[in-house]
């Protein structure tokens, strides 16, 4: 920690930083309003797949960068799970060195264009910005600026492919191509390993592809990053389920020395209430997979999806927001969120809730489904809902929702998307009897090295955390890459 502080201090004292700090009075910086993100018209975008946020124009990015005070103690960084050098990249933007800003981001974050779009900044870096905690003003728009720099680099066509060390010809395997796997793959390639990423699905990207919709995270952005990894020599095997298509033992025989498991939290949870298996009731995973991965809404594609007129989505997380906004885009007249707590407790990003409201999504907060009913063909047509109120805080610290007796009522629905969480993907734990897992089914790892109870196996992301965020998954992937590097090098020395 000492070292990092020293390093930051040294960086901050560089001439260009001092100069840019002096170029404007702090008062002038703090008197500025936070920029607004340009957005597509809600009534246009809720009928198309166009990205909702269109990104800051250059002038506004610079104006926003000028708000940042380049604090001697940059508290924003303590809120960033991967410790991006936030003031440095922002000051690069202020000096109009946008490519420089992007490379600062890439020192610690392999997917800045993704994180700038999907990180919950309001509870991370922006929640600990000097503006938020001391000035009680809207924080510097760190997320917008991150996205700006990353997009600028991508659109400039001058995307820099990180240097990789000379190949050491040691084979390592990555299980799963979500953000955790991609981050681990990138770092291991940089260290010189021969990296193969195994992915069960026919597409690379994990939740970034099959879960988060195009209107929030366009696929091209993920594809550019994957291409970059390919340029670094990373190999990808799609349609390959580790533990099924080949076992870890098979792969070890094929020369793989160590593995990183980033297999995600794949298993959808249901509520186990009456009628939940009627037609027209989906898990959010199925609903989003059909639309995002299989392109079901496009008649040119063979996969079908039901596009209902009255759609209820159960839950209050990002997945619920993505599902309900997708339903609207597929033509729903009424697209409703049914959430058992109040808006304050919603785990979704604040921006997504705001966008959903603008897009004519109805919010039934403090409501809980009790039962579904169907027509004679078995298609859901009605649901029973109960009103809730908030009681005492529970284990998660959020106030527990308590049913209000006698408040039940019925709503007509023809499609329901159940988005009440996921459980860890059981494929890998099932395939490895010796692997230590928690009662929840998450893999137990060392917090520093991400090493599991099987020495050559490391893990991170949702399979360890049980459901987290893109940036935490990536951070795990990078930590694990370092852990694996150390493990393999020590093993070599010992021999």
């Amino acid at each position, binding site marked *: 920690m000492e070292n990092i502080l020293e390093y930051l201090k040294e960086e901050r004292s560089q001439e260009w930083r001092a100069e840019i700090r002096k170029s404007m009075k702090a008062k002038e910086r703090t008197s500025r309003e936070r920029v607004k993100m340009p957005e597509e018209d809600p009534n246009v975008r809720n009928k198309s797949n166009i990205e909702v946020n269109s990104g800051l124009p250059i002038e506004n990015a610079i104006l926003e960068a000028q708000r940042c005070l380049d604090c001697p103690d940059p508290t924003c960084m303590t809120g960033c799970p991967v410790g991006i050098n936030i003031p440095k990249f922002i000051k690069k933007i202020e000096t109009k060195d946008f490519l420089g800003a992007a490379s600062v981001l890439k020192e610690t974050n392999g997917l800045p264009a993704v994180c700038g779009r999907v990180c919950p900044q309001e509870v991370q870096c922006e929640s600990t910005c000097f503006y938020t905690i001391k000035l009680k003003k809207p924080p510097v728009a760190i997320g917008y600026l991150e996205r700006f720099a990353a997009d600028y680099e991508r659109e400039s066509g001058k995307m820099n492919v990180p240097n990789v060390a000379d190949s050491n010809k040691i084979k390592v395997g990555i299980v799963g191509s979500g953000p955790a796997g991609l981050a681990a793959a990138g770092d291991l390639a940089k260290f010189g390993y021969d990296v193969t990423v195994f992915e*069960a*699905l*026919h597409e690379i990207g994990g939740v970034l592809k099959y879960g988060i919709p195009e209107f929030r995270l366009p696929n091209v952005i993920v594809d550019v990053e994957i291409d970059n990894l390919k340029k670094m020599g990373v190999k990808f095997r*799609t*349609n*390959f*389920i580790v533990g*099924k*298509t*080949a*076992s870890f033992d*098979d792969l070890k025989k094929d020369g793989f020395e160590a593995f990183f498991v980033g297999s995600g939290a*794949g*298993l*959808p949870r*249901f509520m*186990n209430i009456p009628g*939940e*298996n*009627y*037609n*027209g009731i*989906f*898990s959010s*995973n*199925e609903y989003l*997979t*059909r639309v995002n991965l*299989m*392109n079901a809404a*496009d008649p*040119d*594609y*063979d*996969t*079908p999806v*039901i596009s209902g007129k009255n759609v209820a989505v159960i839950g209050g997380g990002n997945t619920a927001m993505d599902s309900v906004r997708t339903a609207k885009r597929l033509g729903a007249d009424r697209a409703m969120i049914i959430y058992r707590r109040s808006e304050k407790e919603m785990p979704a990003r604040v921006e997504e809730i705001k966008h959903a409201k603008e897009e004519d999504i109805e919010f039934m907060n403090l409501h809980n489904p009790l039962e579904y009913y*169907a027509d004679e*063909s*078995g*298609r859901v047509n009605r649901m029973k809902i109960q009103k809730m109120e908030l009681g005492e805080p529970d284990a998660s610290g959020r106030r527990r929702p308590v049913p209000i007796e006698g408040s039940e009522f019925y709503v007509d629905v023809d499609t329901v998307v159940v988005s009440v969480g996921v459980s860890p*993907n*059981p*494929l890998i734990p099932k395939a490895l009897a010796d692997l230590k897992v928690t009662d929840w089914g998450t893999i137990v790892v060392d917090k520093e090295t991400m090493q599991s109870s099987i020495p050559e196996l490391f893990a991170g992301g949702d399979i360890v955390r049980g459901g987290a965020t893109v940036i935490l998954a990536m951070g795990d992937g990078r930590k694990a890459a370092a852990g694996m590097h150390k493990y393999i090098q020590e093993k070599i020395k010992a021999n």
Partner: protein
Amino acid sequence: MSKILEKEIFSKNVVKLVLDAPEIARTRKPGHFVIIKIGKKGERIPLTIASADAKKGNITLVVQKVGVTSGKLCNLEVGDEVTDVVGPLGEATHIEKVGTVLCAGGGVGVAPLLPIVEGFKKAGNRVITILAARSKDLIILEKQMREFSDEVIIMTDDGSYGKKGLVTAGMEEVIQREKVNLSVVIGPAIMMKYAALTTKKYNIETYASLNTIMVDGTGMCGACRVSVGGRTKFVCVDGPEFDAHQVDFDEMLARLGAYKDQELEAYERYLKTAETLS
């Protein structure tokens, strides 16, 4: 990408395909299935691995044409590639020597029944197979079934071939006649429902291999869910075989029809374009 190495036409709507898939061939066990997808815009459909040759690195599928994707697959030729093939998926069949096994298949269930019939025969069981269909021209894989069955009974609704009557009549006949230790049924949900009711009457342990709609096949989506003994199970990871006496077939029946209208429309569109092409 998997190349088609061999193709054999069993009947108008049923073909056998041998695909190059070395890893799957190496690890698959009877009862496992794969998910295939044809072309960038294709859908993912499950198909049982009928047999495999680990040394040559290939797997065999027996496909019945019922809609767009199975139709496209049946129309591929030797040398063509299947864009995506992933597996082996599901839990393997519990094949052991139990004595006499009564296998009943109808409609889309006949193809996936074949490797199970073969497995039980090779394990040393007496295998009696009942193939059921509406009429003679819909009976498929009879020759292949005969190869691994001690006896094959054909049942048609209209009596145009074999005996007239439903699959359950054929099952009753066998059960009345001799001791049956285990029954395996695969077919339309309605057939499995009545087949299961029949064996339940005689207290015969019965497996049904469920062919639900699937998307990923890895337990990620829940499209394949069924109620077994009152609990929700995912066919792709918990199955595809379940205790037939515990399965809620009425629910499964309704769920299989979820996309009926869209499937029919897509198939008609596909048949039209296929016609104009040929």
